[in-house]
Every structure is written in structure tokens, then in C-alpha cells.
């Protein structure tokens, strides 16, 4: 028995002796995955938060949903979780198996007088990511900056980034690297937003109190995004405070906001409801009432907009979480005359999403989303018993699923699929007289089915080289017309050293739905139209490369990016095209090429008492539409610039924390003037007998070349002061001064007819320049209780 035991003992020793080095080696090789979510103290997810093990010089960043996944060797590690504007967490970890961890970072106090751009990825993270041409904007950053009428607008803040142009003074349309405003994929919690503007583009639909963050992709589009050529604007709403019931809001010059948020079944979930409404109409109605009955009384039309955001999330268990998002926004413009004429114009988006997040394992999770997005406008005229209504709409039902798999610390694999059913209400017209004598209706509707499959892998080949490759297979069907294509995406980053990296990327994009507009701006009456018949999908490709330098001991990041983008099947419309309720609308399109190129320099600083950025873009955008379809094309087939082509664009943004109570901010912008089309000649049209008296007094302009005249350079300085009040600094007064030195920027130029006052005869013509906004100071009161 003893001998047997001794034999076993020695055998065991022998086995152990033989296997010990192997066990030790195996243990050294054993790697486990930690995964989870990084949130703020109020339960908000923190996209971009870093989860790192400094001793191993490894780490990762939380994705747009706050998820992270990091593969580490077994053993003891010190984990550091950090995010700008939040207190860092250091946690000791003995990793013996895959672990799911969640972190809640408390906001860092301002006692040290350190100003930080909260909710931002660090400059080091930007340096190391393969992604280029991306701008991450935190709502905190946007809220500090001065704004027109004090209305914080995240899209206008994005216009201050290099490579992004505005459509015109005060408008929130984005024109990215030569693309047009309809070529931006604007997403709100994964649901498409068809018209991201209020008030003809002066304000965006995003209520800053409800928004968590915004990512703008200008190039190197990740494979999960598609459907638009030019950019991706990925807006994430806040999830609400998971610990406390909180009310926040603001009272501004033209609108007020109120947000309420709090926990659901404390610790299990949270909700947020946020509303905003303008009150021009309250003042204009009062004015109308005061002036009613006076001679020459002319009522001021009613106008207001409102939007409502709601979001809720609930944790079903360790592996499942549900999210619901809703948005409803409307612009309402109305006019009633004493003569019985009533005019109402309503437009807006309605959006709903439901997302289910399921964690299969620390290495694999999936988000499955169902969403509905609806945009419509209705224009109603009534005159006594006659009524006339005109409208159009687009409605999408979308289902998508997105898997994220981290097999090891070198690969991050994403695969997914999406399917959207579009219903295009291209035009709807009703006219009737009430007594039945006139009763006419017409509408034009189309359906479309758009699908995509994608896969991408972010591969860390070495500490110096990181590659990301993706492929997106897309297809679209409308009636019997079918289209499809492969969209390759590729990015690479090579780090020369800890402070310098080179990046290169390529992307091909298809766009299957098209905005029908023949105006130079995005208007609420614009119509969306599917690829069908002769209207082929738009396509663009872009290559860009850049170099980034971390300067000043990591305080500054200098990035220089160059890009070249070219597209085909770009759409425009025949002169005088019949765009409304036209069953043969496809015949009104004309097609052409586009190309743009430029260089973007960007210097940014995100920590310290003074933060901000300087951006400079040198860019060219071109179009060519050859003679076709019974037209002379555009410019008789000669190359021309779109009106938002601006050669130089300089922005300087400075945020300075004076002390715990005062933030001072300034933004300066200088750009080349917009291009516009001016008539070179004119001729007279008398018209037929019985149409008017004498030769027609109004000249007919002749426009030979499109966008051949450049307006004067645009420049503007905005200043802002945020003064925190209250013992807990939970209230503030925000003073914004838009156009501080009262520059008369050109909004447009036209030729005015000069008439003799006595005879009303035309005596000459002269050019007039119209400016939109003088200096506009505004004061907003914000609170958080």
C-alpha cells in the first residue's frame, strides 16, 4: 500500500516535473477576455472611454454604445478606465477566466479649475485609431460654444470642423468634402433622419439636452454604415440618469427646453424625456392682435416648431438589455387673412427604434434593432370653400442586426445585416370646392427594398501597424428595377513612434434614394425618390491619407489629411422640371459626375484650462453635367462648381475656463464666399395681347453660367460667456454674441429694378447685396435640479 502510494507519489512528481514548465507556459499563453460597459455616474454610456492595462501597453476604447472588449493574459493586472471629464478608475484584477465588468465613472469636479472637453476621446486615442476623417463631438463642447439666438446646435458646431461647410449663413446643412446635404447619412440611435432641420435649415432637429454625442465620419466609413455618399452623422441620445430623478432645462430667446430623466426600477434601467418648443408665435399673435383693425394691417404669419425626444432602457439580465427611442418633431407655419384665405404648412420627422442588446459571451455580443422613420410635409390652402393640399412623405421600416466579435486582442470583427422597406409618397395633391363641383386628387407612390450585408475586421498586426478591412454588399429593388453593388472599405494606420502616425483609407459608397430639389438649399418641400427606371444609384469613391503628430507632451494633436473623392450618377434636374405630383418624375432628372479634393489641417487641444481647435481647409469641388435628355446639361456641359465650393475655410475655436463659475468661449470663421449665379443679360417679353399693358416692365434675366460669381469672403466672430450660478453650480446664464463685430456677410446678391417714384417707370438696374444676421446677442438660462 505504502509502496503503491510511493509509486503514485513519484509518478505524480514525475508528471508534475515533466509538465510544470508546460503548465507554466500554458498559463502564460492563456488569455481571457474582459468585456462590459463604461458608463458615467448618472448611467450614461461613455463612447470612446479607454480601458487599458498600462503595464502591458495595451487597451481598447468603448464603442458608440459604451461597450468594450479586451483580451488579456491570465494573471494579475491593474486596469485603468478613463474618460476625459470623468474621474479615472483603477482596478486590480486577477484574471483566471473571461469576465464581464461594468464601470461607472464619476464626473470630475471643477475644483482644480481644470477645464476638460467632457465626452471626448483622447488625443492619443485619435492618434492610434485606424479611423481617420472622423470628428467626435460631445454635447458638452457644443453647449459651451456661442450659438445663434442662443440655440445650441450640434450640426452647426460640426460646421466648425475642417472639411465641413455650411449651406449658407445660419443654416445647419452639412456639405462634407464636396458632397451635397442629401448625401449625409444622419442617424438618430440607428434610425435614419430624413430632414434634420427646423425652420428651413436655421436649426437642427437635435435637442442638445437629449443628445449624448455625435460622430461625424467624413471618410474611411466603417462597413456598418452605408446608403449615402458623403458622410455619416451618428447621433446618440442620452439614456437618462440611472440613480436620480433629474430635471434640466433652459429658457432662451426663442425657445425653451425641459428634460426629465430618472431610474426605472433603480439600477435596472433609466428613461429620459426631453421637449423643446419655440415661441415666435406667441409674440407674433400678440402683435397681430394689437394691430388688428389698423389701416394697412397685415398679419404676421404664425410659425413655431417643437420636438420631443424620449428614450428608455432596461436591463433584463446580465446578458440582455433593451433600449427604446422615440422622436417627434414638427414645424408649423400658418397664415390666416381676413379675406378668408388660410394657409397651413406642416412638416417633420417621426422616429421610433427598439434595440435589443444581447451578450453571448465576453467575446461576442449583438445589437438587433427595429426602427421606423417617417418624414412628411403637408401644405394646405383654403379659400372659402376651395381647398388645395399638396404633400409628400417617405417612410422606412428597418430591421438590422450587428454582431461584434473579439476573438483575441488582435482582431475586432463586425458582421451584420440590414433590410429597409421604403415607401415614397412622391407627391399627393387634392383640390376640391366643397360643393363637389371641383374634386380632384392625385398621388404618386413607390416602394423600395434596400438591403445590406457587411463584415469588417480591425486587425492589429503589430504595435505599429493596424489594418481595417470591410466589405458591404448592398442591393435595392423598386418594382422590377434592381440594383446592387459591393462596397469595399479599407483603412490602415502605421505608427512611426508614440507621437506620429500615418493613415490611409479608401471607401466606396452607393446611394439608392435621391433628394428631389431644384433649389440651392434643402427645403421642407423636397421629395425623396428611389432608384428606378433611368434613375441609377449614385456612387462615389474616396481615398484619403493623413499624418498625425502628438505635440506639446501630448497636449496637442496636429493632423493633416488630403482627400480625393469622385462620383458618378450624381443627380440634378432639368430647368423648369415638374417636381410635384409627376408620375414621370424620372424624366426630369439629369445625371453627371462630381469630383472634389482638398487638404485639411487640424490642430486640437482637449485638456487644460484652454481648449479648442484650429482648422484650415483648402478644397475644390466640381460637377459636370453633359447635354442630355433634351437639355444642354448644366453650363452647356462645361465643368462648374457647386455653390458651396469654397476655396479656403479657416475656423478657430477657443474655450477657456476662467474659474469654477466662468467659461469664456469664442469661435471665428473665415471662408471664401459662396458661389452664386447672376444674370449677365436680359431681354423683354411682352406676352400675348390681353396679358398686360405696354411692354412687360419686368426684365427676363439670362443666366449663361451656373455659379460663376463668388460672393465676398465670409467671416464672423462669435463670443460666449457661461456663468454658473447657484451653490451647486447647477444653473447657468449663457450669453452668446453672434457676429460680434457686426460683419455684413453676403447672403445673396440680386439685381434690383429702379423705378421713378412719380411714373413707376423703370429708370435703371443696380446690384444689391443682402445680409441675413447682424450682431445678435442672446441670453439663455439653463438649470439642472
Amino acid at each position: 500500500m505504502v509502496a503503491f502510494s510511493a509509486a503514485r507519489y513519484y509518478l505524480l512528481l514525475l508528471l508534475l516535473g515533466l509538465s510544470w514548465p508546460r503548465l507554466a507556459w500554458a498559463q502564460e499563453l492563456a488569455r481571457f477576455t474582459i468585456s462590459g460597459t463604461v458608463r458615467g455616474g448618472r448611467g450614461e454610456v461613455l463612447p470612446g472611454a479607454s480601458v487599458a492595462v498600462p503595464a502591458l501597453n495595451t487597451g481598447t476604447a468603448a464603442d458608440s454604445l459604451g461597450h468594450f472588449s479586451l483580451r488579456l493574459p491570465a494573471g494579475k493586472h491593474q486596469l485603468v478606465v478613463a474618460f476625459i471629464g470623468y474621474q479615472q478608475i483603477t482596478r486590480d484584477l486577477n484574471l483566471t477566466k473571461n469576465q464581464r465588468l461594468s464601470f461607472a465613472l464619476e464626473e470630475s469636479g471643477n475644483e482644480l479649475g481644470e477645464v476638460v472637453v467632457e465626452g471626448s476621446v483622447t488625443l492619443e486615442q485619435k492618434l492610434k485609431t485606424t479611423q481617420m476623417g472622423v470628428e467626435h463631438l460631445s454635447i458638452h463642447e457644443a453647449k459651451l460654444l456661442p450659438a445663434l439666438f442662443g440655440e445650441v446646435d450640434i450640426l452647426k458646431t460640426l460646421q466648425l470642423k475642417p472639411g465641413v461647410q455650411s449651406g449658407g449663413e445660419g443654416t445647419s446643412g452639412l456639405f462634407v468634402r464636396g458632397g451635397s446635404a442629401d448625401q449625409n447619412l444622419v442617424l438618430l440611435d440607428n434610425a435614419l433622419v430624413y430632414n434634420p432641420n427646423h425652420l428651413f435649415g436655421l436649426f437642427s432637429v437635435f435637442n442638445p439636452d437629449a443628445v449624448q454625442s455625435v460622430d461625424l465620419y467624413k471618410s474611411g466609413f466603417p462597413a456598418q454604415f452605408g446608403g449615402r455618399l458623403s458622410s455619416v452623422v451618428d447621433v446618440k441620445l442620452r439614456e437618462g440618469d440611472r440613480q436620480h430623478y433629474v430635471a434640466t432645462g433652459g429658457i432662451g430667446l426663442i425657445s425653451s427646453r425641459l428634460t426629465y430623466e430618472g431610474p426605472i426600477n433603480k439600477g435596472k434601467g433609466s428613461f429620459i424625456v426631453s421637449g423643446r418648443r419655440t415661441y415666435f408665435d406667441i409674440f407674433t399673435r400678440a402683435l397681430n392682435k394689437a394691430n388688428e383693425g389698423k389701416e394697412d394691417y397685415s398679419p404676421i404669419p404664425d410659425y413655431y416648431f417643437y420636438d420631443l425626444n424620449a428614450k428608455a432602457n432596461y436591463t433584463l439580465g446580465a446578458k440582455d438589455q433593451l433600449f427604446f427611442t422615440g422622436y417627434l418633431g414638427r414645424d408649423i407655419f400658418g397664415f390666416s387673412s381676413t379675406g378668408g384665405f388660410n394657409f397651413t404648412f406642416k412638416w417633420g420627422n417621426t422616429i421610433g427604434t427598439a434595440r435589443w442588446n444581447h451578450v453571448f459571451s465576453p467575446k461576442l455580443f449583438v445589437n438587433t434593432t427595429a426602427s421606423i422613420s417617417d418624414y412628411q410635409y403637408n401644405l394646405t390652402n383654403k379659400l372659402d370653400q376651395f381647398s388645395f393640399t399638396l404633400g409628400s412623405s417617405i417612410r422606412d421600416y428597418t430591421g438590422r442586426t450587428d454582431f461584434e466579435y473579439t476573438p483575441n486582442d488582435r482582431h475586432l470583427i463586425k458582421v451584420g445585416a440590414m433590410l429597409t422597406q421604403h415607401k415614397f409618397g412622391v407627391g399627393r395633391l387634392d383640390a376640391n370646392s366643397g360643393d363637389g363641383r371641383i374634386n380632384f386628387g392625385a398621388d404618386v407612390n413607390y416602394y423600395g427594398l434596400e438591403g445590406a450585408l457587411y463584415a469588417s475586421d480591425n486587425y492589429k498586426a503589430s504595435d505599429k501597424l493596424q489594418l481595417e478591412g470591410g466589405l458591404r454588399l448592398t442591393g435595392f429593388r423598386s418594382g422590377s428595377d434592381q440594383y446592387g453593388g459591393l462596397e469595399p472599405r479599407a483603412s490602415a494606420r502605421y505608427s512611426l513612434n508614440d507621437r506620429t502616425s500615418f493613415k490611409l483609407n479608401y471607401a466606396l459608397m452607393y446611394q439608392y434614394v435621391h433628394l428631389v430639389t431644384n433649389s440651392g438649399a434643402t427645403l421642407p418641400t423636397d421629395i425623396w425618390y428611389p432608384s428606378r427606371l433611368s434613375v441609377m444609384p449614385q456612387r462615389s469613391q474616396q481615398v484619403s491619407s493623413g499624418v498625425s503628430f502628438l505635440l506639446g507632451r501630448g497636449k496637442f494633436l496636429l493632423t493633416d489629411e488630403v482627400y480625393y473623392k469622385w462620383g458618378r450618377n450624381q443627380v440634378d434636374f432639368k430647368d423648369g422640371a415638374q417636381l410635384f405630383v409627376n408620375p414621370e418624375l424620372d424624366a426630369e432628372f439629369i445625371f453627371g459626375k462630381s469630383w472634389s479634393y482638398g487638404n485639411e489641417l487640424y490642430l486640437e487641444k482637449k485638456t487644460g484650462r484652454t481648449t479648442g481647435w484650429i482648422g484650415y481647409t483648402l478644397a475644390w469641388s466640381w460637377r459636370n453635367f453633359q447635354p442630355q435628355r433634351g437639355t444642354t446639361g448644366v453650363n452647356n456641359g462645361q465643368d462648374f462648381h457647386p455653390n458651396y465650393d469654397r476655396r479656403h475655410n479657416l475656423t478657430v475655436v477657443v474655450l477657456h475656463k476662467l474659474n469654477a463659475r466662468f467659461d469664456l468661449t469664442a469661435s471665428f470663421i473665415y471662408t471664401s464666399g459662396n458661389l452664386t449665379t447672376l444674370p449677365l443679360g436680359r431681354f423683354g417679353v411682352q406676352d400675348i395681347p390681353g396679358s398686360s399693358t405696354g411692354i412687360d416692365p419686368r426684365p427676363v434675366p439670362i443666366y449663361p453660367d451656373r455659379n460663376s460669381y463668388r460672393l465676398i469672403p465670409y467671416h464672423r466672430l462669435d463670443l460666449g460667456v457661461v456663468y454658473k450660478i447657484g451653490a451647486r453650480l447647477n444653473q447657468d446664464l449663457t450669453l452668446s454674441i453672434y457676429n460680434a463685430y457686426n460683419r455684413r456677410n453676403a447672403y445673396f446678391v440680386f439685381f434690383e429694378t429702379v423705378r421713378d417714384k412719380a411714373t413707376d417707370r423703370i429708370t435703371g438696374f443696380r446690384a444689391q447685396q443682402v445680409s441675413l444676421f447682424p450682431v445678435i446677442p442672446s441670453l439663455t438660462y439653463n438649470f439642472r435640479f
Partner: protein
Amino acid sequence: MKRKINWLVLGGVPLLALAGCGKLQNNIDVPLPTYSAELAVECYLEPGKVPSLAVTTSVPYLSTVLPQVPTDVTVTLTMPNGTPVPLTFSPNYQALIDTTGVKFHSHIGRVPLVARPGDVFTLDVRDTQGRHATSTTTMLAPVPIDSMNYKFNDKTGAEHKAYVLTNFRDPSTPDDAYRLQLHKGDPARGVLLKRPEVDNSFEDRLLNGQEFVVGTSYRFYPGDTVTATLYHTDETYFRFRKSVSDARGANGNPFAQPSAIYGNVRGGIGIFTVLSATTATKILPK
């Protein structure tokens, strides 16, 4: 420090507000590139009337006001049977400044025009500088006005007004266009030459072959004589009018896309068409 900033803020705002009290519309100098003038032709033939047309030239936008009437232009109208009819240069300059409604013409024929639906006419315009404009048009069949109806509102006094409905049926052929004018007053007193009360243009693309009912607002008084003139026009004339309207509308509208002028005059700019009209008159009861 805080106090200093407060004063800065309080003092700065009114100053800045005052600075904003300037004009937002200002005269500017716009250096326009050189513009080459074209022949501008406007010719509306009417059966039973002596053919005439106005030939002018387009001019640089900021140049003199009065239309430029070239004196070296010869015009030939070719009839459906191939007969060329010269139109002589005989401008009625008085029409440029009077208010009778008579239209200016630079060239005029001698005998009234005989035209039937389907007839094809050709116009040839040339000057001594080598500019040469041509055009061809076909007369469309007139479309009869089936009826005119009216209805008064319930109001009294000066607000007691009627609307008028004009009914006609579109032929089954596609791409018809119409222009409907309603004049108020006695046609014998020349009101049909004056500015109409209502002037609408429309196409048949949504109502091809169907009945059209075109209404007005409440704008006619008891006792008014209302004359409807319905022009059956081709797509070319409709498009010309729309492009003229769009081109005018784009000057001063930052949201509008300027339109080129789409006429049917090759080698120049303008329109050549035959007016194919029917009329109906309704006298509203007192």
C-alpha cells in the same frame, strides 16, 4: 475679477446691439463679364389678324432700360403652302409707352392670317451682322369652353362676390397645355387687351382626356361681364412661359435655381407660336 467681467458683459451687450442697427441690404458694384447680345424674337400669330412680331436684342443686364430694336433685320414668314411672306420693318414705338394694351411690333405683314389646325408656319429672321434666327410652329385645334358657371357667397354689400368656374374637356392626345384668361368688363370697350383678372397656365399630365374645371376666388361682382379666353398651346410655349417665370423668380430668391430660357427660336431667344383660342362670356346677374 468677477465684477470686472460682469461690467464687461453688461456694458458690451447694448453696444453690440447698437452696432447691429445698420442696413442689411446694400448697393454693391458687381463687375459682370462681357455679354454677347442675341436676337430676341416674340411672335404670336392669330388667325384673322395681320401677322406681326417684335424683334429686339438682349442686352447686358446693367445697361440701358429701353429695349434695343435693331433696324437692320429682315423677317420672312413662310406659310403652310410654302409661300414666303415678308414682314416689313415698321415699329410702333408708341406701344412701348402707352397703356392701351396694344403690343409693340417691329415688323408687320399686310393681310390677315389664314390658319387652320395642323398648319405649319416657319419664321426666318436675319440681320446684317450675320445673326440668323429661325423657328417653326404648328397651329393646334382650339378646345371649346363647355360652360361657365358662377356662385355668389352669402355676404352682403361690397363683400357680395362670386367665383367663376370654367369647364372644358381635354382631348385624349397627351402633352396638351392651356392658358386660361378671364377678363372683366365689356369686350367691345377693349378690355380683352388689358390685364386679365385671372391668368392661369396648366398641362394635362394629370387629367389627360378628362374634364377640366378651373375656378377662381370670390372676385366678381353682381353685373360683371366675365370673358374667358382659353388658349390651347403646345408644350413648347408652356415651357417658354415657365422658364421666363423661373428666370425672373430666381433673381432675388436665394433658394431658387436659375433657369435658362427655353423657347423655340434657333439662333436666338424667344417664342414663335400660333394662338388657338376660344372664348365664352358670362354676365353675372345684378
